[in-house]
């Protein structure tokens, strides 16, 4: 119910932000991976965020924050690089490289970090309000 709601909402965002950061880190770590468990080079993965229902029922304003709906592969074409000495090079000397673009990942990482900070600040503020509410009894 009411007051804890705010803290829980921010908590859901921190959780989603953590997953997002993990996926970005995975992409950066695999920027040169040409052989994965599924065969073929690494494909960039992306987090899909979905908002949860917001409602103003008679019981009060309900908010449930955000969730990670899916982690899906990016269908962008792989990059073909001429590198005949590479063990995964084809007959013509080309290697299929992951479709990870480092600047994009870096920009996403900064956005994710800033969003995480904003949510942490919101959580702090909610927690302080909770403490204030307890002071009614003091």
């Amino acid at each position, binding site marked *: 119910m*009411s007051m804890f*709601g705010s803290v829980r*909402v*921010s908590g*859901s965002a921190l959780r989603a932000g953590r997953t997002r950061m993990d996926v970005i880190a995975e992409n950066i770590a695999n920027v040169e991976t040409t052989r994965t468990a599924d065969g073929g080079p690494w494909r960039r993965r992306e987090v899909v965020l979905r908002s949860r229902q917001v409602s103003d029922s*008679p019981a009060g304003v309900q908010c*449930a924050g955000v969730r990670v709906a899916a982690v899906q592969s990016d269908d962008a074409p792989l990059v073909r690089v001429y590198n005949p000495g590479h063990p995964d090079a084809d007959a013509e000397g080309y290697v299929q490289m992951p479709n990870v673009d480092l600047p994009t990942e870096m920009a996403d990482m900064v956005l994710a970090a800033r969003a995480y900070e904003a949510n942490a600040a919101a959580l702090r503020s909610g927690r302080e*309000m909770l403490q*204030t509410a307890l002071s*009614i009894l003091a």
Partner: protein
Amino acid sequence: MDIAAGPSEVMSVTGGVADLTTRVLESALDGAAAQHRVAANNIANVETPGYTAKRVRFEEQLRIALRAEQGGEPGGPVERLRPEIASTGDAAGPDGNNVSVEAEMTELGEAALRYRTLTRMLSRRLQMVGTAIGDGRGA
């Protein structure tokens, strides 16, 4: 307690626990908490494509409810008041999201400050009742 204070005065003081002022404070606290929750939800969805920022409409409604209040009986307009949600209607970016972190942070700060102020007022209010109960020796 002074003997001269008859039963009616005693009633009015102890009845103060649930008088109109206290109910307005409680209602406003509810509103501030909802305002905070919705702002936190907007920040949580700052990166969610298609999310539109929400706002709690409360103060204006509280003002109207106060005007409609007659005699301050329990169950009146103020007590029935519930915060409502509306969209901010701000222009959305290319991904359909219109959350402004700056605006939401301001909203959060404002809600937290209001909550703190109201809490203090409610606390004082209850202290006054406590003083009355405690024979003027303090709560």
